[in-house]
């Protein structure tokens, strides 16, 4: 219950709402930039829905992580923020893999893989990118839940719940 209230509390603050909108916008731009590197890709409805969900969930995670970073006396929440960025980059990268995967292939050659090694990776990503995106979204949802628990100790509702637990002890 405290988690839901914390989420509502965060998103009623104008600055966090703005961060969410801005985050989603930037993530969409990153996705569009990455996808534009592959002219040989035609995205189906499912991929677009999944990438939309990934962008939204990553932005929510970013906002919660920022809330924790801002309110915690000790450094925490950075992992969530970093993960939010990484998962978006990777998600967009994997969606850009179709019959061809020029960006991912270039990246793999750039880090020193040869054609055979690189083809292992991008043939896998191209064949299973829908499932990989789905996995990312699920992980995002779990992280949002975990970080909301962390964030709730900095809100009134969360503190009340903690105090309530202490007193019932």
């Amino acid at each position, binding site marked *: 219950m405290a988690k839901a209230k914390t989420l509502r509390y965060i998103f009623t603050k104008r600055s966090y709402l703005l961060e969410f909108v801005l985050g989603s916008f930037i993530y969409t731009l990153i996705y569009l930039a990455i996808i534009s590197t592959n*002219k040989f890709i035609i995205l189906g409805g499912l991929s677009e829905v999944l990438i939309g969900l990934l962008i939204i969930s990553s932005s929510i995670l970013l906002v919660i992580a920022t809330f924790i970073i801002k309110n915690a006396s000790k450094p925490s929440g950075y*992992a969530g923020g970093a993960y939010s960025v990484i998962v978006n980059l990777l998600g967009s*990268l994997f969606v850009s893999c179709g019959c*061809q995967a020029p960006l991912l292939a*270039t990246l793999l050659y750039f880090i020193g893989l040869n*054609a*055979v090694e690189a083809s292992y990776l991008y043939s896998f990503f*191209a064949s299973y990118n829908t499932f990989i995106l789905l996995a990312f979204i699920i992980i995002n949802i779990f992280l949002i839940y975990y970080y909301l628990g962390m964030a709730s100790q900095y809100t009134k509702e969360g503190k009340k719940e903690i105090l309530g637990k202490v007193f019932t002890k």
Partner: protein
Amino acid sequence: MVDSKENLEKEIKEEKKEEKKIEDIVKSLKIVSWSALVIGVIAIIVGILAIVSLPKTSAPTNVTTVAPVTTVSNASFSKAIYVNGSLITPSMSLPDAPVITQNQSFGSRLTDINEPLNASELAVINNASDSYFEQAGLMLLNGSINDVGVQPQKAPLLIVNGKPSVIYLGAISCIFCGENRWAMALALGRFGKFNALFKGYSSFGDYDLPTIYWAPAEYNISSGVDFGNFYNSSYINFISMDYASPIVQGFELQPLSYFIQKADSTGSAPYVAALQLISNLNNFQGTPYTIWGRFVVPGADAVDFGNVNPSQPPLPLEYMTHEQVLSQLAHPNDMFAWREYAGADLYIAMMCASINNTAPICALPAIQKIESVYGYNS
């Protein structure tokens, strides 16, 4: 009174213990957080570097003023690779992948899959008029055709039994391979003849486009490679391989090592050499992948899915039959057909540049102009 004091002390001790525990967790979280942040920054830097170093994939829109620049120097690929050995001639039919005769609905149809093209259909490919190639070439050069052309890279010539080779690596499930085979067939038909071609489709997950297969496809197999074709030419060889997977599913591909292993098992030296070459070039980035003499084309000839060319589904080509596609190619009067001919022109120009313009098609003015404007003959 004493009891409550002891209890209080106990509680304080426990709370302190818990605080220490939390502090330890925070400490470890701190390490995770910072390492994640570092990984994130590195990922962004690598991403930016990759985008910057990515070779351009599209041909210039104004080809008369801007000639494409090849990314690999001529000197590295001046030596040809010589191989002798028999090419692969597949069987004309597959018992496990029979022709499907029943009519099925667009998007999930396999109607006539693996059926050989009849004589008049085959003639559309084998006997396409030079005038169509000329007109499409001129349209490409004056910029009235777009979405055609990929930046080629240089490769050494693979000379099999004394003739230079065209190498194709694709997948039956792949939408762009499906589109690309039409242009490829038109181009190859100018250097020789197909004794057989087969009706096919891209996979259901890749829009079920009507296409041609070089050989009957193992469209039911969980994983395989369809090697070989029925092509004959006195100028060139055609080495073709398509990854086969269930056509009713989506796009699937296996790594290069899988193709190499399968080619080894065929015992065909030219196919083994072709895959060795692809592997050594280190520029394979998916399907279709073709080598036209001295030029690697790492992608399809065009984005061509109908007269109107949407980048999003529905794709007009998905709702066309093989007969309709062949009829458009036989009498081109729309953008879809002109783009296919223009894509074929680029392939022809690359091949002509690789065989010193010895084939009659190389004398076509548009082909010679493409060779010089695109820098293929330099």
